[in-house]
């Protein structure tokens, strides 16, 4: 174990995928939009989160339902639990949240505890004018098993950091559901430290909000860890959803599997997916695969998709990525319609099928049906308009 730790220390080389972080806000200049990490983001719509907008709002209330054995408590700035995942702010907003968060929580699952039902934390926004910042650290003890659902609803301007410490041999699923009202702005940073032989699944569901930008990163504290990052998003007219992922293979024999799928519909619906994977010299025998698929339902949408794989050792088991953006397939629609199925229903089926493998992989029964229903409700929003377009085209 120490040998690995030493190796990790030695191998902390510069990587173009991974700018060095800093806790000092002044080390992160105010972005102009020309920077690589900001070039896709509509800064003007961030309500100053990236500059100096005060973060002292209290417009996001938290309610939680924590099964027995799970401890949820407030912590003060400076508490050693903060940063215990190895999280170092990698941009100005994350650094600002580090210092200015109005609420800081620790969610702790003791070692060897199997929590049967999910811990559900609902964050309800009531105010977009005053930006709010929160910092949560989820610590799952050695060999524990837990699912934590973070659900974001209402209207807010929120910047938050979520850290996850996955103990050795633990199995942790964190589900984040952005089900905001249309006027919410949410910039989130999530970082996980995955222990030896531990499994971490991160599920990021994005349906609501004006601008949602999530920076999700994971690294490994020891060999044998597995990370699965799953994402499902559905962007409507005007919405900007941005998912920036970084898996840092810092230990040997680790695995990562990333699958994000999204649908876009309506004028200026914009999604961004950046999938960065770094395989460090020490990370021999690892396996990684990352994939992003977008289904563009109408004209006027844009899906940006950029996978990056940086490999510093040849001794790996497998590494690959795939990225594809497509429209409804005319042949599929024709096939279904030739069996009497209406155009609307055919589109519904294809979309349902598009997300189905992903929903099965998410495998959190408590949210599965809800996800399917929301996907269908989102599609229904546009079907009436789509109908008009289809009829004109005939």
């Amino acid at each position, binding site marked *: 174990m120490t040998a690995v730790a030493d190796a990790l220390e030695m191998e902390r080389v510069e990587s173009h995928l991974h700018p060095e972080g800093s806790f000092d806000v002044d080390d992160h200049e105010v972005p102009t939009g020309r920077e690589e990490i900001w070039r896709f983001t509509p800064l003007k719509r961030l309500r100053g989160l990236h500059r100096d907008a005060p973060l002292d709002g209290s417009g996001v209330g938290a309610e939680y339902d924590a099964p027995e054995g799970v401890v949820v408590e407030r912590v003060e700035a400076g508490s050693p639990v903060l940063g215990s995942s190895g999280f170092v702010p990698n941009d100005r907003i994350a650094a600002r949240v580090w210092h200015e968060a109005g609420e800081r929580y620790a969610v702790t699952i003791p070692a060897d505890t199997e929590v049967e039902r999910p811990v559900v934390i609902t964050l309800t926004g009531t105010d977009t004018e005053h930006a709010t910042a929160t910092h949560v650290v989820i610590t799952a003890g050695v060999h524990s098993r837990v699912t934590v659902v973070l659900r974001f609803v209402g209207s807010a301007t929120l910047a938050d950091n979520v850290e996850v410490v996955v103990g050795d041999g633990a199995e942790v699923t964190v589900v984040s559901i952005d089900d905001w009202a249309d006027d919410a702005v949410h910039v989130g940073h999530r970082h996980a430290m995955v222990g030896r032989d531990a499994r971490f699944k991160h599920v990021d569901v994005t349906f609501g909000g004006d601008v949602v930008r999530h920076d999700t990163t994971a690294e490994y504290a020891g060999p044998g860890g597995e990370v699965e990052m799953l994402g499902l998003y559905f962007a409507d007219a005007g919405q900007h959803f941005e998912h920036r992922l970084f898996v840092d293979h810092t230990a040997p024999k680790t695995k990562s599997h990333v699958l994000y799928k999204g649908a876009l519909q309506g004028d200026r619906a914009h999604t961004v997916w950046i999938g960065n994977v770094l395989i460090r010299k020490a990370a021999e025998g690892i396996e990684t695969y990352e994939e992003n698929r977008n289904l563009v339902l109408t004209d006027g949408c844009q899906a940006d998709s950029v996978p990056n794989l940086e490999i510093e050792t040849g001794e790996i088991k497998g590494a690959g990525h795939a990225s594809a953006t497509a429209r409804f397939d005319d042949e599929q629609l024709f096939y279904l319609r030739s069996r009497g199925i209406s155009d609307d229903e055919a589109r519904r089926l*294809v979309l349902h099928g598009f997300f189905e493998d992903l929903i099965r992989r998410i495998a959190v029964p408590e949210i599965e049906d809800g996800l399917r229903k929301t996907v269908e409700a989102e599609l229904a929003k546009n079907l009436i308009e789509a109908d008009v377009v289809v009829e004109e085209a005939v």
Partner: protein
Amino acid sequence: MTVLDIKDLHVSVKTDDETSGEKEILRGVTLTIRSGETHAIMGPNGSGKSTLAYSIAGHPKYKITSGSVTLDGQDVLTMTVDQRARAGLFLAMQYPVEVPGVSVANFLRTAKTAIDGEAPKLRTWVKDVNTALDQLNLDPSFAQRSVNEGFSGGEKKRHEIAQLELLNPRVAVLDETDSGLDIDALKIVAEGVNRFRRQEDKGVLLITHYTRILRYIEPDFVHVFVAGRIADEGGPELAEQLEAEGYDKYVKAAAAAAVG
């Protein structure tokens, strides 16, 4: 009594190449299929057989430039693709399309509901699906697989015929359902088609390249299809003649006509 009436049908295909635009494939097809009749269309590759099938079904790639298609007097060409199916037309495709993530069970139930205008009764429906799959030698677990995804060539064709039996249209167009099948699969598929056409009031348009399937599904009429038109017509004996002589003389005649 059902009548599918195709009159002097001219069809162009929208080519992928934007500049060259459209290419005429069907050059005046006239054909009447009455219920109780099985018509075989036989022709060489590229003669336009699939184009005819797709045009009847309403595939958006094909443009009808003139002529008419009616089903019991109703104009088929102004119907949408799904309206045609609900009116009683069915196309078993030469290349069935994969629909990932949509199970066969869900697909069949959705199609049946659309065709009937109401959801099928659950108890009898499950039994009907299992029977249809079983008769086509498909395992019940088949219903949980995604539509056509990862199916073998034979499974795709048998799945098409299972749909034919479950949706039970008035007129079925079968586009090279026999190609790519070994002899056992061919017999299974032919039995399915025969079960379908033994019912009252069913018409079949059987498109094929080979005479082999006609040993199991005996046609009432045979049409030789060459260069986008019907070049010759007759009874089952015409199929035997084609078996012996091939399409050569028709292809040469069509080429000569095109030059002249």
